[in-house]
């Protein structure tokens, strides 16, 4: 499966993307690769504005028809804005994961250089395509 990995973003091994903004905040979402693996999203549990989060702390949940998956904060920081539109339109993450499917904005003083660049994330995604066991394998009718 080929997925889109924009070159100008940072990434985590847990499939979040990070976009640095001019005001010193970062915007966070999940990657195209992640939304492909999850399938049609039907519910997003977004964090509360003002919540302080640590790097690798679970702070949102995205649920597809078959499985729930945590979204982790890529960095230490404080949630300053969340994408309220996802409550009614979780499919925006499937349709536009790097745009209208953004999940939250984080105010952070942390450096970004501990994150993966596009090439580093591509290696993670390719390794997973070869061994697709990282996301819940749903139990199916039959």
């Amino acid at each position, binding site marked *: 499966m080929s997925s889109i990995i924009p070159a100008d973003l940072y990434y985590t091994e847990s499939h979040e993307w990070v976009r640095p903004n001019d005001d010193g905040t970062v915007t966070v979402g999940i990657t195209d690769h992640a939304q492909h693996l999850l*399938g*049609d999203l*039907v*519910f997003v*549990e977004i964090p509360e504005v003002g919540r302080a989060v640590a790097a690798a702390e679970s702070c949102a*949940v995205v*649920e597809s*028809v*078959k499985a*729930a998956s945590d979204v982790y904060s890529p960095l230490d920081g404080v949630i300053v804005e969340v994408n309220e539109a996802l*409550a009614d339109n979780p499919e925006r993450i499937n349709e536009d994961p790097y745009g209208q499917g953004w999940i939250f904005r984080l105010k952070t003083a942390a450096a970004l250089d501990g994150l993966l660049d596009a090439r580093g994330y591509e290696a993670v995604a390719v390794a997973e395509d070869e061994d697709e066991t990282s996301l819940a*394998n*749903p*139990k*199916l*009718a*039959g």
Partner: protein
Amino acid sequence: MAKRTPLYLRHAALGAKLVDFGGWDMPLHYGSQLDEHHRVRRAAGLFDVSHMTIVDFAEPAPTRALLRHLLANDVARLYPGKALYTCLLNEAGGIIDDLIVYDRGAIGYRLVLNAATRDKDLAWITPIAERFGAAWRERDDLAMLAAQGPEALARLEPVLGAAMVAAVRALKPFHALEADGLFIARTGYTGEDGVEILPPAATAPELWDRILAAGVAPCGLGARDTLRLEAGMNLYGSDMDETTTPLVSGLGWTVAWEPADRDFVGRAALERQRAAGVPQTFVGLVLEERGVLRGHQSVHADDREIGQITSGTFSPTLTRAIALARVEAGVGVRCQVDIRGKRLPARVVKPPFVRHGRVLIE
């Protein structure tokens, strides 16, 4: 290596997301599980269910005696062309599998069992069948396609011919016919009109192509699961297993208590449970807030745990979360479900949630 159905190459060519299911490489979806779900509710979808276990018994007389002993429902209720849904029980009344048995008249009986339970089912059935002198064989030379949805029969006309489709239309639900080398049953696992077709494995890919060309959309096992849950149909291994009886699994209606002298496996245990009072009941839940119900979430009422969800999902038709749950008998109409530590309100309902495209709750 995982087993593959005769349609495996078709799935791969259609770009299906393939997953392991009970040792089989099966299509989860062909792009969008939600779209496939809606196609079946509104028009027609085609599922490859060739992984199901098909067993034929050739001799009607000893098989009838065997099945009256082996199955909790009573094949004496059958007549040629009629099908019956039943549980296969152990001596403790626990469910080894659920299955459909078809009466084929002089040809014998056909059982369609689950795929993941194949080995234990056959190991259980073999010695009992031997005792009754009922010979059987597994039909892995057959494929199984389910064409489901309100438009399914109309769209099958150019494929099967108008005369054949007219004959199928004349069948009542849970009846089957055999013609032109095909076994066609008005059964399914979606809550919609439609058929299950059992062609020879060798000709199944061509039949699959022709049905798709007739405007029936390929659908994966993901949609099959949300469709069956909306239809209030149990899934073996999630909603019931060897530790649960039909009486606590919403399947009491499948147990044929009469005639009282029919000695079927598990009968004594079920009678004891019934006499002692069945401790649990099997219900539907509708989540009243946003979120998704899932199997193993705990159900609460009056600040204590009263049971567990056995399978849950987001219902594409209702656009809210629904579930099947096993809870204490006497449950009211309100409860709460624990989702990641939060208690969210849910309403207790009687399944099915959806049948023939119509929402049946509320």
